[in-house]
């Protein structure tokens, strides 16, 4: 269980997140959606302990963030492909596996490679990989420590539609053992999440299952929710 309460974060004078409070339940996929620049990545970096939040608190399984040992439980996939281009795919996986400090069984490495369909490319240097292959390898690396929490920042960018569906099926399978937090701005992907957190105006503007949100706003797709939010903001704006 991830509990964020009254958390704020600003860089200098610019406030990125203001008074964010949210609980993220276990064993489901929570989608963090919103236009770019609304603080999705900052929120994730605060969760990881990479950025320090200014006020409030973040707790994962009742342990306060930041905490180094907590990272054992978390698998993280950044927005950019964080791979060593001069190592092979397999070497990348093995290296990061070792960083978790415990022995990762060969079978786990193998099944992860199968999951992202990189088995026949594992001996290739990453610099010869296509964009989609790199993304899949990054995903495989995030899964390698069989984490309780899986935090994925735009995981399906550049992955072809067939594989994307495949990966979403796999992500739903992972729910058995993990809690997933996924950022995306592809709205049809948002519909595949169990819970949605809509980010807007430095905080969470709406939350609930995709169906609940659509009903609340009386619209037929998520894009329109953001348009509604935009209109509300305009109406509420003080008239000078």
């Amino acid at each position: 269980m991830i509990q964020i309460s009254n958390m704020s974060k600003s860089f200098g004078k610019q406030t990125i997140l203001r008074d964010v409070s949210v609980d993220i339940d276990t064993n489901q996929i929570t989608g963090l959606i919103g236009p770019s620049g609304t603080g999705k990545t900052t929120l994730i970096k605060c969760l990881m302990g990479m950025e320090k939040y200014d006020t409030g608190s973040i707790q994962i399984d009742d342990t306060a963030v930041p905490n180094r040992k907590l990272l054992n439980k978390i698998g993280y996939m950044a927005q950019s492909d964080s791979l060593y281009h001069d190592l092979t795919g397999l070497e990348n996986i093995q290296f990061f596996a070792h960083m978790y400090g415990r022995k990762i069984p060969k079978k786990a490495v193998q099944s992860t490679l199968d999951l992202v369909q990189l088995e026949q490319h594992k001996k290739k240097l990453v610099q010869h990989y296509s964009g989609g292959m790199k993304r899949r390898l990054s995903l495989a690396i995030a899964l390698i420590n069989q984490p309780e929490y899986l935090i994925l920042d735009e995981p399906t960018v550049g992955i072809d539609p067939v594989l994307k569906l495949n990966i979403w099926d796999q992500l739903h399978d992972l729910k058995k053992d993990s809690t997933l937090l996924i950022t995306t701005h592809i709205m049809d992907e948002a519909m595949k999440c169990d819970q949605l957190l809509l980010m807007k105006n430095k905080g969470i503007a709406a939350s609930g299952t995709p169906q609940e949100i659509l009903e609340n706003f009386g619209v037929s797709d998520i894009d329109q929710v953001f348009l509604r939010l935009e209109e509300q903001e305009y109406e509420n704006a003080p008239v000078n």
Partner: protein
Amino acid sequence: MRMLQLIKRICKQVLRDKRTLALLFLAPIFVITLLNYIFPDPDDEVTIAAVNVSDEVIDILEDNDMIVKQEKAMDIKSYLEEGNASAVLEEKAGEWTLTILNDNPMDEGPAIQGSSQAVMETNLNDLSDNIDDMITNMEDMSANVEDMIESIHEMMEQLPPEVAQNMNINLDMDMDDTDIDTDIDSEIDMDEDPITVEYIYGDESYTFFEILNPILVSFFVFFFVFLIAGMSMLKERSSGTLEKLLSTPIRKSEIVFGYLFGYGIFAILQTAVIILYSVYILDMEIVGSITNMFIINILLSFVALGLGLLLSTFVSSEFQMIQFIPLVIIPQIFFSGMLNVDTMEPWLQWIAPIMPLYYAGNTMIDVVLKGFTLGEIIAPLSILILFIVIFVTLNIVGMRRYRKV
């Protein structure tokens, strides 16, 4: 455990990167070899063109291992520009003129020195010839005086005695006293050196390269290790792998030490290659122990690693990393023992002690040329260790930028 894996990964990456390997091992060998041959051998002969110069001067120049070309009057500038000689020596009505282009102190220095020496020697020879002539003249004169006295005696004997007594001239001069001492040593020996040079360290065969080489060994270790450590950390950061690495439970100190030892292996290998190549292939003479050379440079390479990693956190591109070279690397050369820090401006003398190469370069000279023992270089070595501790600490603290725990 994690650190070992990090070291293993770095080794794999460096070994696969043939260019980096070449930069680490072949580049320093190439440059050191070049420098070994680029500096003129002190035994090399300098060519001087002589215009209207007496054979005597030419003989002296040639005795001093210079090649002398006898030329007629000509356009000196174009003659020198064409590279026919390093200098042109001319005599006009007793006035000596040496013309140089003033663009190559390596050859022109000896030319000026040799020529002025030759002209001076000739002048001295003339002077001693003149003295000889003078002595001959004086001898003639004293013979004449003796003759004169004798003729006066004869004259007086012919005079009546009372006249001679009235003249009251004392002619009982002792002829031995008037004999002018002609035993002046007019032979000034030109063959012997006017001054004997005693060498406390080494001997006259030391070339500039021999003094420079120990400093260069350290410089290359510092430069290449700095560059490679900085670049690879920058790559780690810009490719996002540092962030990914910090999303695992690895300690920040494990990353810094992993980097330090991973690249440290190559730094040590590079140091060994440079030192062994200088000593065994280029015949660099070392008075002190080769072990001490290793100790200095391995410590220095760790300083360079720490500094490279640290500075890479302030840059966002390879080009910005290169910008540190004129700021951080080049100034250190001036303080590394090539120039005497004690004679610099006072404020520069304050800068010297903050430069790692100041300690390494000067200590290398102490070991290689002066044969200092480990006990005698313990102070600068401690300072290098202090640099390492400071840089490592700053690096670990600096990692907080990417993860707060």
